[in-house]
């Protein structure tokens, strides 16, 4: 059963074997696996329930209901980086691009070495990846779903002699509607909204929507539930108290909200790692304007990634979005904005993703919101300049008239020479305009309490009964889209919890 604000007038205390906070790539997977194993599962989700039939292409309606804080979330630092997270049943899997990459072997080898256990190595995770990929239909796109913007990217990479990797995406008969970031209206994207959550509900789980969890319930040193308040959809005031008591609590709110919740209870003191090791795969956009129609909105978003510079920590890809989303990132207003945006149908929107070489932190503030701090390292700045140069050069080679660059002070280049002159002047990190949807690493998993927040079973070292199951677990950045890796780790945590229950 899915409940919402109106239901809490009469019901506000719930009991379960397991309460799962969050319904995204981590929470939905743990909850579904445990519900199918016969446990009584209750999900608590801060966002609302929005089914496939409700999705539309309108930013003004979709962003407030599907995104945390209507997407007004920012990482403070040099430069400040806007970030996005899903806040709805299905979490970020509802609004992501649907890329279904496993963490690369080199990242998993590093995890294994870092934690000193084969549990996080490629071999141990292989069956988990396989299970997840089967359930979310991870596969390549059909040829008919590919749009002209992706074809330009593929042709450009071929012209430059670059290696590309065709994306596996969690999709079932995707027809390239290119509405991924506002919810897939065809139901083809296999987000947890249409996979794991329905499975859990059919197995008897309940989902409390529109409830913000504010505290863990801790009794005699053990976590025994959560409490929070339901949010009035009209006034947005959190005004109805909700309590869920359970034998195990799974915190799966993402790499910002998870440490924010746990830090409230003074956890993480032993390792001092809770909230640290914040990683975010920052992205920079390069928008190319071509002399002919592209109509990037017709056809799937991001059919492939350019992997030629992957070993240097640089990924490049197309990523087309609706005009209401793009306009928020185009660095102009007034006439100048119209001059660029009226060429919307001739644009190829592409981006450079850099694998973090540094890390940031998440902490609590007195204002009732998390403070996320992250500075781009000099190495990453150099990588961005390299990535922007390469990507913009590729667009010029493909015949682009001009490119809009991700710098606050110099935004447009009409030629490779002009691009070089602009890049030479980019000496300061704070002129970069970045963005990120990938947040990771703030409650890292490990085999020792001294340098990690949770053990290899996902349980907090300092709080029995409390588990983490989201991208917070990542010991390092992985350099690719994280959802499949989150799902694999969440499956592992469910398995271990089920084994523990069986043994008990």
């Amino acid at each position, binding site marked *: *059963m*899915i*409940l*919402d604000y109106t*239901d809490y007038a009469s019901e506000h205390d719930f009991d379960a074997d397991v309460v799962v906070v969050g319904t995204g790539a981590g929470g939905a997977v743990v909850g579904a*696996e445990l519900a199918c194993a016969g446990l009584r599962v209750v999900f608590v989700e801060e966002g*609302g329930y*929005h*089914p496939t*039939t*409700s*999705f*539309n*292409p*309108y930013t*003004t*309606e979709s*962003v*407030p*209901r599907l995104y945390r*804080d*209507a997407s*007004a979330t920012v990482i403070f630092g040099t430069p400040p980086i*806007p970030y996005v997270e899903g806040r709805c049943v299905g979490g970020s899997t509802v609004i992501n691009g649907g890329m279904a990459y496993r963490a690369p072997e080199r990242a998993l080898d590093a995890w294994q070495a870092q934690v000193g256990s084969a549990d996080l190595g490629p071999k141990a995770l292989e069956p988990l990846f396989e299970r997840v990929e089967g359930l979310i239909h991870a596969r390549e796109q059909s040829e008919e779903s590919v749009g002209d913007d992706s074809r330009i990217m593929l042709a450009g990479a071929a012209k430059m002699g670059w290696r590309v990797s065709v994306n596996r995406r969690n999709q079932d*008969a995707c*027809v390239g*509607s290119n*509405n991924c970031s506002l919810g897939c*209206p*065809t139901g*083809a994207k*296999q987000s947890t*909204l*249409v996979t794991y959550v*329905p*499975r859990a*509900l*059919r197995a008897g789980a309940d989902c409390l929507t529109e409830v913000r969890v504010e505290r863990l319930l801790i009794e005699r040193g053990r976590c025994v539930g959560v409490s929070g308040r339901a949010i009035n959809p*009209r*006034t947005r005031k959190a005004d109805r108290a909700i309590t869920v008591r359970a034998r195990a609590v799974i915190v799966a709110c993402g790499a910002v909200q998870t440490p924010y919740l746990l830090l409230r209870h003074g956890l993480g003191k032993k390792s001092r790692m809770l909230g640290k090791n914040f990683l975010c795969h920052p992205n920079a956009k390069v928008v190319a304007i071509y002399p002919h129609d592209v109509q990037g909105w*017709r056809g799937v978003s991001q059919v492939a990634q350019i992997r030629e510079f992957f070993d240097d920590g640089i990924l490049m890809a197309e990523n087309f979005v*609706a*005009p*209401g989303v*793009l*306009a*928020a990132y185009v660095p102009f*207003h*007034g006439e100048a904005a*119209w001059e660029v*945006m*009226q060429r*919307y*149908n001739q644009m190829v929107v592409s981006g450079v993703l850099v694998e973090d070489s540094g890390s940031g932190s998440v902490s609590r503030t007195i204002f*009732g*919101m998390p403070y996320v701090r992250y500075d781009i390292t000099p190495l990453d700045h150099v990588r961005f300049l390299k990535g922007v140069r390469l990507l913009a050069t590729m667009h010029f080679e493909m015949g682009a008239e001009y490119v809009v660059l991700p710098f*606050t*002070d110099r935004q447009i280049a009409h030629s490779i020479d002009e691009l070089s002159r602009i890049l030479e002047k980019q000496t300061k990190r704070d002129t970069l305009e970045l963005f990120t949807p990938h947040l990771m690493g703030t409650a890292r998993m490990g085999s020792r309490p001294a340098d990690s927040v949770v053990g290899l079973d996902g349980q907090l070292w300092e709080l029995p009964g409390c588990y983490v199951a989201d991208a917070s677990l990542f010991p390092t950045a992985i350099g690719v889209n994280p959802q499949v890796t989150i799902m694999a780790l969440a*499956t592992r945590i469910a398995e271990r919890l*089920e084994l523990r229950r069986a043994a008990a």
Partner: protein
Amino acid sequence: MTSGDWSHQDPPEKSGHRRLRVASQVSLARHPTDGWIAADPHPMRPSVRRALHAVIRAIVPPAPAPQPADLVERVELYVRRFMSYMHPLAAFGLMLAFVLMDWAPRLLLRSRRRLQGLSRSEGARILEALVHSRLELFRSAVLAARGAIMSAYFDQQEVHEALGYAPVPFLRERIERRAKLLEPRAAPAAAGRAS
């Protein structure tokens, strides 16, 4: 762990939502048909509203970009609704940004008037200067306000039409196309149920 039958669909009616209407067909309506209640616009004093109107006029593209008669009110409504979903501190910060931008011409000694007393083009030039200010506070204020206003403007029907962006017919065609793709799967399932 059980594998079982993992079908891929929204929650079934039986275990579905108590009250929200789960439409069987995608409507693609601007306001979705799932019973979702949009939040009330964020409360705003008249003086801040006047500042917001001035900022909207300075930021939205002028003609030949589409200029619906109620453009400022429409963008205002969406911006204020966005603010209702933000953290209260972020929404308060955005209101301060509107006020700061309204006073910017005087603070920067560029005019004796506030933004609301200037022409659209003059206002746009002053905001452009703020974007390149050395003070991060000014830069951040304009960027945050600009993001919200531009997003709302470029989501308007008239603007979509002017851009040649027609997502609704395109999505309808894609939904039908996918339904056809799934037909071969649906037929044996229906036959199985009948038998």
